[in-house]
């Protein structure tokens, strides 16, 4: 998500939004670094955050499909931000209360940032949805386009520290409230692509990783 949001730098509709999306990207990157570092230590095979971020191939990534989707137009980016943060906020809240102290500390920190991201996604969804006929139509199209990818977020995994299925209620409540205020319609559930957490991705991830990893791989061990 950080990589995708970073693509908006110098390309957002207004300068304040350049800064906003870059700041959210920085928060997402910060949380990702802490989680990857922890994952590397837990694995015990000597891989650090860089090894996990830059030296794995697409099939070895376990991210949900939603975060690898191309940015689309600004409305589509906002729809992704709204849905992701409406999922991350209850996820981090639950992890912050969990038994794993290291994970709880990371989650407690990330939760505060997620709340701010959700505010941002909410604000823009309402502004665009309840705006002009053009902005309304494009925001509805954005919500419709991203919606199928939200189902995967809540696929049950009893082995996870927090079963994602348990977060669905909080997500639905948040999204229902925001869409109603934005005069947008919640899409019907139907086609629900999945597989990201098993390493089965859209082709978009491969291109994203190629760009993200090329410098690290071209200059192994480089420092600056």
């Amino acid at each position, binding site marked *: 998500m950080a990589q995708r949001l970073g693509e908006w730098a110098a390309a957002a509709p207004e300068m304040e939004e350049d800064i906003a999306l870059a700041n959210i990207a920085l928060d997402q990157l*910060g949380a990702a670094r802490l989680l990857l570092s922890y994952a590397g230590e837990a694995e015990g095979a000597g891989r650090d955050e860089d090894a996990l971020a830059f030296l794995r191939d697409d099939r070895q990534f376990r991210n949900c499909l939603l975060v690898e989707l191309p940015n689309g137009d600004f409305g589509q980016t906002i729809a992704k931000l709204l849905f992701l943060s409406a999922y991350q906020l209850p996820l981090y809240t639950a992890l912050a209360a969990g038994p794993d102290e290291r994970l709880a500390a990371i989650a407690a920190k990330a939760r*505060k940032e997620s709340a*701010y991201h959700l505010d941002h996604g909410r604000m823009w969804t309402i502004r665009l949805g309840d705006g002009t006929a053009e902005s309304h139509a494009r925001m509805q199209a954005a919500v419709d386009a991203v919606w199928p990818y939200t189902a995967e977020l809540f696929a049950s995994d009893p082995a996870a520290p927090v079963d994602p299925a348990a977060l669905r209620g909080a997500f639905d409540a948040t999204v229902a409230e925001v869409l109603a205020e934005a005069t947008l319609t919640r899409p019907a559930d139907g086609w629900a692509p999945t597989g990201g957490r098993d390493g089965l991705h859209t082709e978009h991830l491969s291109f994203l990783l190629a760009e993200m990893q090329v410098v690290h791989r071209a200059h192994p061990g480089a420092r600056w």
Partner: protein
Amino acid sequence: MNATTSGAAGAPAAADGGSGPRTPDRARAAAAAVVDPELRVVTIDELGILRDVAILDERAVVTITPTYTGCPAMDVIRADIRAALAAAGWPDAEVRTVYSPAWSTDWISPAGRTKLAAAGISPPAPVRAGPVPLTLLRTRCPRCGSADTEQLSRFGSTACKSLWRCRACREPFDHLKAL
């Protein structure tokens, strides 16, 4: 992510060089005097980033916590702390980073708030404001003191700030987001 830095610009040299007694208080004072590289008017102690300074086996161990998880200033802060402690007679200091409890703007000291305001950065309202509703604590212009202000952007030049404008004196200013 491999960033290393020689930027010890924020580290003040100890007043008495490395020749004074190596007391824990002196290590603590050296770490506390390190200036935040992005908010250069306040120290990391005043910001609440500095959590602890301890001496373990003749070695200084400094514990800090980031304001935001992705704060890019952390590498510079670590380098500055090590440089400041080396100057105070504690070479090879270790800097540990903790994430819990999560940093809050409520940890910024009164002195830190005063310095931020004097530098044109409006300090945050208390997160736990007690009986006073947060809506009554309007963001005040750090230049003219007016409460007639408006938010231009919820995000600013660093992760910890948002951008505001004073409707009374028309000046834009930074505001440290309450967290």
